[in-house]
């Protein structure tokens, strides 16, 4: 299994993936024209033809034996470039008066575009039959290796938006209590339009003034900063890399936006470049513990390797591994223990 940039002839494969993701995965709608546009955008990003602040790096996880696409993930170079990127920032306002013997703090949601210009990791999907052999970790972390390798193409900070909490009927209590008053559509429609990148309606319909959370229902307040149960493992993985919730939430479902300075992300900090040596055969760890990625943007590859580098930063690859990663003896390879 390996990660590589999406290619123009991946359209059928990507559409097959899109058909599987279903409702709730809005950045990958089953819409051939839209997907073709996405592939084109990604291709010109990897070819570095689009400006650095307007790039979508879209990757696929490929079963190189069958050529089948097992999943995908993406990095947005900078959010908020063509459409505003909105969040609510959960802030605290003190209401205090000595004469009234009053001291209360009131949680307040402030509409924010503070994250404009930050990078975003997003669009991670793995087909159910491939949810094994640490493929999920590969999809998630390959992006850090890419950012570490091409650090100068990225800004200071990175964020990830996590899906919020929904009730047993698939309804977001946060949306019911807040968004539904302002958006004449249901949650899925609003989310779908956002996924299609048609975000201007958000700015036009959103409440512009801060929202005192005390006016929201208890169920809605309990959604603030909470993730969907299916998203918890992804959140844990990001937290281990050092991403943290700083009080920003999604304006629709209240899910947390986690963030970090890219230089502080564990994978970015601890990955290192090694020299490749290719041998006919080598011992492999029972459980893959080392991620490796190539240093070319156009031909970026990432995958698990069977062993770690030596103290002299030499990484021994089998021929199969070197083919999978598209590297030969003497090439550089970025390694991350994980």
């Amino acid at each position: 299994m390996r990660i590589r940039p999406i290619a123009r002839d991946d359209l059928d494969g990507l559409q097959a993936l899109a058909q599987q993701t279903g409702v709730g995965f809005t950045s990958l709608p089953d819409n051939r024209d839209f997907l073709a546009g996405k592939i084109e955008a990604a291709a010109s990003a990897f070819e570095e033809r689009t400006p650095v602040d307007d790039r979508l790096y879209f990757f696929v996880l490929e079963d190189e034996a069958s050529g089948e696409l097992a999943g995908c993930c993406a990095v947005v170079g900078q959010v908020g470039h063509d459409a505003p990127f909105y969040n609510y920032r959960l802030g605290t306002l003190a209401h205090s008066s000595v004469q009234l013997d009053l001291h209360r703090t009131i949680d307040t949601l402030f509409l924010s575009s503070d994250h404009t210009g930050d990078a975003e990791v997003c669009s991670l999907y793995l087909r159910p039959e491939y949810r094994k052999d640490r493929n999920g970790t590969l999809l998630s972390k390959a992006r850090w290796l890419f950012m570490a390798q091409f650090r100068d193409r990225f800004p200071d900070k990175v964020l990830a938006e996590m899906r919020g909490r929904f009730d047993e009927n698939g309804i977001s209590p946060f949306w019911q209590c807040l968004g539904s008053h302002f958006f004449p559509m249901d949650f899925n429609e609003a989310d779908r339009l956002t996924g299609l990148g048609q975000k201007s309606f958000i700015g036009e319909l959103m409440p512009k003034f801060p929202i005192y959370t005390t006016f929201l229902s208890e169920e809605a307040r309990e959604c603030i900063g909470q993730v969907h149960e299916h998203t918890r493992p992804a959140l844990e993985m990001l937290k281990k890399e050092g991403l943290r919730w700083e009080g920003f939430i999604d304006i629709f479902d209240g899910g947390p936006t986690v963030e970090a300075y890219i230089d502080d992300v564990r994978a970015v900090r601890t990955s290192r470049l090694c020299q490749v040596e290719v041998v006919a055969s080598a011992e492999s760890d029972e459980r893959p513990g080392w991620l490796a990625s190539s240093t070319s943007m156009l031909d970026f590859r990432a995958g698990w390797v069977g062993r770690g580098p030596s103290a002299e930063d030499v990484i021994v690859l089998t021929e199969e591994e070197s083919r999978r990663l598209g590297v030969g003896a003497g090439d550089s390879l970025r390694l991350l223990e994980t």
Partner: protein
Amino acid sequence: MLVVRPVRPADLPALERLAGSATPRLTNLPAHRDRLEERITRSQRAFGREVDFPGDEHYTFVIEDRERDEVVGTATIRAQAGANEAYYTYRQETLIHASQQLNVRREVQTLSLSHEVSEATLLCALSLDERYKGTSAESLLRRARLMFIAQYPERFAEILAVAFPGFLDAEGESPFWNSVGNHFFARGYQDINHIAGVRSKSFIAEVMPQFPLYLPLLTPQARAAIGREHPAHETPMQEMLAEGFVRSRHVDIFDAGPVIKGERERLETFRRAAWHPVRVRPAASLPDAEPAMIANQKLGEFRCVVARYALSPTGQLMLSPEHAEVLGVEEGRAVLAAPLALPAVDDVYDEGEL
């Protein structure tokens, strides 16, 4: 005979009684002896002072039943609603959220804290003995203040405002307060109303949420209470609308009671008030005529009564000796008169920026 006059120190027990019996309890008439005493002193100062433009004067009046020798009501004019401190209201606003992309247009109602009413002259703190409700005494007490303002226009603003007590449910609870203020103060409506009366309203307002409130997020009960007067004040409200006041976009910050506003020149009492020289005639010989408010022209000794609007062919106002005595006017002196009856009027809503 009923007469409206400036409050005196001896009226303190009556004021205490009236403050305690007001329905509902009024923020600006707290049943608090020290505050009421201050109110009297402050009023005496205002009546005694030379004033060229409205400031922090409060003029408090009482209505006296001469037969019973009893003070049965009180009302106040604040020359400027927010003279020393800001006068806070919530202003109802409509924001339009429209999206071309989705071809939708939504109106969203908000309430924003406002100081806009601060400049207006405020008619407030009216409490009348239950036995006189619905009689001409009520109209006289309410509108004698307009007769006073008509005589001393330099002391008051061009725009007059009245804040009506807001809607309370059968338990005396304010649905609006419960949905808004209570979140920030964790105190009941009656409690906060009392504190506001004894201290001041603006120091509480300073702790109110400063950002606009989105109405869709309030409870339906709270929304229904916005701009709705207390059930006991529906008739007085109609009277003031007939006077020429119009509903404004402003409501009280505690109970969302309506604030009505009127330009002096558009009010019936100002438009129809006229000066007449007095001719004193025995009560029995006075012709029948519609009732009118009659006020003298003495600042500190202001008096206003209801009498027949009986004019001689030469335009003199014919008064009984009793009315002339109460007003402190002799034959030949001028009095201001305005008809008590008001034209019937539909409930008017101010769509403008009055």
